[in-house]
């Protein structure tokens, strides 16, 4: 634990900003894409008769 805290204290804040940007980008884009897919699925599914929604 001490080693981790020491490493965090010595870490370059500039590096962390790039790391944070990469993670925010990946999580954000995948989340937005998932939401878009689900919302569009509901919109399209509403127009489809229940017998054509074979996964239900």
């Amino acid at each position, binding site marked *: 634990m001490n080693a981790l805290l020491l490493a965090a204290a010595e870490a370059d804040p500039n590096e962390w900003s790039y790391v944070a940007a990469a993670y925010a980008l*990946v999580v954000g884009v995948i989340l937005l894409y998932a939401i878009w*897919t689900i919302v569009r699925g509901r919109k399209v599914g509403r127009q*489809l008769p229940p017998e054509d929604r074979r996964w239900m």
Partner: protein
Amino acid sequence: MNTTTGGPLEDRETGSGAGLLRVHPDGTASPGSRRFGIVLSVSVVVFLAVALVISPPDSGAGASENAMGEMVRIMYVHVPVANACYLAFFMTALASVMYLWKKTEGWDSLAAASAEVGVVFTALTLATGSIWGKIAWGTWWEWDARLTSTLLMLVVYIGYLALRRAILDPVVRAKRAAIVGLVAFANVPIVHYSVTWWRGLHQEATISRFDPTIDGGKLFALMFGLLLGVALYVWLMIHRFRLQYAEARLESKGLDVALAERRAEAVADRPQAGAPLAAAAQKGTNP
């Protein structure tokens, strides 16, 4: 799960139920995919803790002189999204072959859905690689063999998706898209082996042939990320495939309705077209 309303069956039929397991009646989710989504969400939180907090930076006593410090953490998302895009494009190629063989709508829908998910993952691969490059190489972009071939792969699959939108006839579209989906996959091995075939800025594989260049917590974080990337691809594919299938069914129904209307118009026009002929026959003259 809501045990008082009759369980998942009732949830499916009415869209009712309580809590996280509630399934929207019109959506692409099923009780199974909902459970999978919950497990994935928890896994993402655990992964973020492992990758950003628990795993050590690449600057300890055992690190090489090319130690990456905190930047090693970008690898835990960059490599998994790259791996997921390979998987997505492999699935597109496989489904394209199956479509050309079986000629069924489902394979075409699977190929299209996987290509779109693959494009999202490829764009993320390039973006995270670019962030990495800014610190490691001092530039956002370099015309290195790996970067260039990955960009080409992205452009080709965007072209595949554009082709699908450009052709209206579903059968022609499916056939042409299957051929393009199959040919486009030829670029995937080139992307993967580009770091071996052409020496450039991009490093060689970090984990290959069971001889990883990292170990301990870093290797665990990377393997966790790889598994999570595959699981995310599968979850996205479940929903995206169902959406694609639903759109194809709607399109097919739209075509059926249009054809039925056209036939009805043709039947309605027929007596009118034959009327002058009948009148001429009664008079015994040519119309």
